[in-house]
């Protein structure tokens, strides 16, 4: 297995005054180019912290992240993030939000006209070209998240990081957007790392599912291969034996072996 993205013995300890909490313990993971990997776990298990470490927004206490065998420890467009709450800048239009990243990443390599075309190309990929001059407040939650995806894709990231990208959406919009992301992954072959707490979403989208134990000191409990052929069809999979078996495995992990214990 060729390591494209490698998480190497990552520990994360938060210190607040004298008290310190170990959030992540000894996280090791290698991801191949073009792979779609999901990280699933109960809330508070540190999966968002892990994503922030990979994105470079938070530093690891020990260990590090290697992308194409080079250590990365600060944020950059090669690891573009789709944030949970879209994080579009409300004072910019849809077009300007995507353009902001494009202008930075391709400042030297693309001309103005090329950058403009590239922005529109990416808005077209997520079917949002029609709303190019709208402000985020004028479009729906699903549309905002599409623009968020376009903004990340437009930076041509080596790894696309999705932080519970569909968490804030209603079930129908979520399904629709999941299909879009699957289609984009199929078409562009991106390497994608997604944080989720939705079992169906993880099984439907991923090549591998990384299951995390409960924090503090969360570890990788189990990694499950999802041997389903692509393209995957949501309706056909509902009765597919492999799909159901994978789903069962994840459910067992989350609800039997590592049941979420509410902090008293």
């Amino acid at each position, binding site marked *: 297995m060729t390591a494209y993205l490698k998480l190497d013995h990552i520990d994360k300890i938060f210190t607040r005054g004298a008290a310190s909490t170990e959030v992540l313990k000894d996280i090791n993971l290698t991801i191949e180019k073009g792979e779609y990997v999901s990280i699933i776990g109960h809330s508070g298990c540190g999966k968002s912290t892990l994503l922030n470490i990979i994105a470079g*927004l938070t530093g690891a206490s020990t260990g590090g992240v290697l992308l194409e065998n080079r250590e990365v420890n*600060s944020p*950059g467009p090669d690891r573009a993030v789709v944030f949970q709450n879209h*994080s579009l*800048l409300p*004072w910019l239009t849809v077009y300007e939000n995507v353009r902001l990243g494009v202008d*930075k990443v391709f400042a030297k390599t693309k001309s103005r006209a090329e950058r403009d075309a590239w922005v529109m190309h990416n808005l077209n990929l997520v079917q949002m070209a029609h709303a190019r001059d709208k*402000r985020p*407040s004028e479009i729906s939650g699903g549309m905002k998240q599409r623009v968020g995806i376009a903004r990340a894709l437009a*930076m041509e990231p080596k790894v696309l990081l999705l932080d519970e990208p569909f968490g804030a959406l209603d079930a129908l919009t979520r399904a629709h957007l999941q299909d879009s992301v699957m289609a984009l992954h199929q078409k562009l072959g991106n390497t994608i790392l997604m944080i989720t707490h939705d079992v169906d979403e993880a099984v439907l989208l991923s090549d591998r599912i990384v299951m995390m134990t409960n924090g503090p000191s969360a570890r990788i409990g189990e990694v499950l291969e999802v041997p389903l052929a692509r393209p995957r069809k949501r309706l056909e999979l509902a009765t597919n034996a492999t799909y159901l078996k994978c789903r069962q495995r994840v459910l067992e992990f989350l609800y039997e072996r590592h049941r979420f214990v509410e902090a008293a």
Partner: protein
Amino acid sequence: MNMTATKIEIEAATTAASAAPVVAMTPKRPPRSEAYARMARETAVRVIPPLVVIALLTLVWELVCRRAGSALPPPSKVFKDTKELILDPFFDHGGIDKGLFWHLSASLQRVAFGYSLSAIAGIALGVLVGQSVWAMRGLDPLFQVLRTIPPLAWLPLSLAAFRDGQPSAIFVIFITSIWPIIINTAVGIRNIPQDYRNVAAVVQLNPLEFFAKIMIPAAAPYIFTGLRIGIGLSWLAIVAAEMLIGGVGIGFFIWDAWNSSHISEIILALFYVGIVGFVLDRLIAGLGKFVTRGTAQN
């Protein structure tokens, strides 16, 4: 609103016509006139109550002050005494014998100058204090003490420093209006959502781009709150300061009228001061609304 309403109406009319050609329906036009009527009603609701209150207050004032030996003139006398000043605000007989326009414009120029300086310095300092924890720890206590000093208390010191009325008045405006601008800007900067900072980090904006593209737009609603309080304070301070420094200006005009016992002129000047203050406030509020459109609601 109007446009879509009319369009739908036309569509409805045409479909009705094609479906039943026998009945020749003239497209009804009530919505537009109704819209005008509604607009007129809304305006009336907003304009009539204050007019009624003003009329009543004027009446009470007239009745109270009309008696012989009353210390203050009734509105009718105020108008009679100041008719010349109202009708010709542009005369200039040299020295300080000028029309009200010139006095107001001199005051406004001082405010414009002092306020612009305090807006620039206030936003800059606010960004510094909002962005840097150490700057906040060092400067915030200082600001909290200095901002409680009344504007006029600065005047003797600034006269001593500048040895001239004009820069002293401008300094008083500056020092009065800067505190709310600093404090509100700092709060705005501190309240920039982490999400926006993360976006900037992933896109790798440099500090200058971050300032222009994230900080200022994100903090704009707060900044404008500070600017609006600041302009109000400037106008409060200038009138008081001009009473002391003399020369041309609406504050001095009031003081001069008092010294010459022209009470009616004082009352007229107060009207103008109030109206100009109101307009200044609305101007900044309107500018803020224009600049922060889209930012306020997320």
